[in-house]
């Protein structure tokens, strides 16, 4: 049979995403219980769940390997492809910020500011819009370390509570954007599987609005 494939981000968002889908009548019990499997078919509902690395959710959806995806708006923005971003699911809320050390010393060297981040596209776009030339340094984690060891002047990263920043002697300089989980849909799928997909989108939308 032809499934509707939903890509979920492993980790932080997975449980919240599955809670949401279960409220909308999509059985996620197998996906919850299994630790190694990455693909789960439910023949009753015709829905296939796949579990992928969070940053890869937009890729799967953009290429049509998944019809629907649930991902943070940070990864969607960083990916930058042409996806339908249809619903703000309201969970996984945090902020994308520029942060730097408390003591700004010197100011003699006016070379490009160095920005460490896991989100080179978002960071480049933010500074370009402000007319600032910067050097972007791509890191894959522990970005807060950048300014502490002289790798970068500032960082662009997600903050939830701000405690990690504080512990590392950094403070928020500016907010880049608000971040939350979004429901994304492949462009071709919405046309060719219109009814089935809209049923899911409407069910999720009704549930999200009820919760607000």
């Amino acid at each position, binding site marked *: 049979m032809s499934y509707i494939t939903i890509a979920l981000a492993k980790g932080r968002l997975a449980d919240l995403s599955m809670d949401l889908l279960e409220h909308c009548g999509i059985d996620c019990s197998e996906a919850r219980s299994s630790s190694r499997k990455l693909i789960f078919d439910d023949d009753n509902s015709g829905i296939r769940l796949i579990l992928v690395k969070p940053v890869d959710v937009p890729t799967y959806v953009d290429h*049509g390997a998944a019809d629907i995806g649930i991902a943070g708006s940070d990864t969607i923005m960083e990916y930058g*492809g042409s996806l*339908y*971003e*249809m619903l703000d699911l309201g969970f996984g809320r945090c902020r994308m910020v520029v942060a730097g050390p408390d003591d700004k010393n010197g100011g003699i060297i006016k070379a490009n500011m160095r920005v460490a981040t896991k989100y080179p596209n978002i960071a480049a776009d933010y500074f370009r819009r402000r007319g600032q030339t910067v050097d972007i340094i791509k890191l894959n984690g522990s970005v807060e370390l950048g300014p502490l060891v002289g790798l970068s002047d500032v960082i662009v990263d997600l903050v939830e509570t701000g405690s990690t920043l504080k512990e590392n002697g950094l403070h928020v300089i500016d907010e880049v954007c608000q971040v939350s989980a979004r429901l994304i*849909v492949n*462009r071709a*799928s919405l046309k*060719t599987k219109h009814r089935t997909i809209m049923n899911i989108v409407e069910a999720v939308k009704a549930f999200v609005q009820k919760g607000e």
Partner: protein
Amino acid sequence: MESWKLHIPEGTQDYLIDECYNKEELEHKLTDLFHRWGYRSVETPIYEYYDVFSDSSKYRHQEEILKFVDRNGRIAALRPDMTVPVARMVATKMASEPIPLRLCYCGDVFRYDDLQAGRQRQFTQVGVELVGSTSVLADAELIALTITALKCAGLDNPHIVIGQVGVFKSIIEESGVDQPYAQRISQLIDQKNIPALAALLDGADIDDNYKEILLGLPQWFGDVDILDKAEVMVKEPTIMAGLDNIYGIYDALVRWGLDDLVSVDLSIIPDLDYYTGMVFNAFVAELGYSICGGGRYDNLLANFGTALPATGFAIGIKRLMLALERQGKLRPAPPCAYLIVYDESGMKKAFERAAQLRQQGFDVIAEAVEDVGDAAAYASERGIKNVLHFCRED
């Protein structure tokens, strides 16, 4: 230094026998079909002066275009699409031809596309341009031709989605919002990002009625009835004209008997700013990308000195092949019909027989016996059914 001589540039590809066979077949089938609809083939250079594309810089991002400097120091560009060069050609060289003018092409275009998206940087497009008509029936003809072309290529269940950028552009014009802001709005509409669109419009200095329409655009998609929802909110004749255009196209498609393959989506706002009216894309369930895109561009030719309306579409051959493959519609290149093996003594007769068979339309390999080795084994490996010997020992 590392040598690259065994590699090809990112985003390019070699076409080996079976893939090349299918590609060529499709190009022939589609070009033949366009001819039968009265379109005539044209060609433009693979590279043009960059000004052709940059003068209309709003039409394409400069990063997308592959550029180089020619011997005179002028910037040249590999064509990023076929529509702009054909528009240039028509406006500068065919302005006195009787209109409407029906043209078709098959050629390679070059784009530095987003690396992440894994798209090719050189790819083949076949397409048509219908120049000189503003008629809604011209728009409808293109959609009917697209569907016929995709079916003729062997594709099952193509689905066409029609939009209308005229509706969006009229609102932007009438409400007088500035360009960067309009661009942000268009992106959010195109992404169907209703929450962000609502937030953006909330503080905007735009008439409430327009706001409601802008917010409606991402939601107005599906069967043609969806237009009724849009219609009740629209008073301005310019915006109404856009909706009427889709009704008109749909009406004509009913008479082509093709209306069941078509739906409407008012949120389609292509990146390419040269579109002025109807726009459309073709999809199949098996592929996550659009196979074909097109629309009306009434102001593009004026850029090159002749104001003529036009409408057109292009089919991406590679994407069409991907869709066909997923539907199980591609086949390997058929083997040659004959292997003729000859030696010195049979050479003349062999060549005569080969010529005769080729005349009859068969694919024939003629091979000297000492080059082919075991003829039977070679033939069976290549799938060749008939082996003829013109050798002394036979």
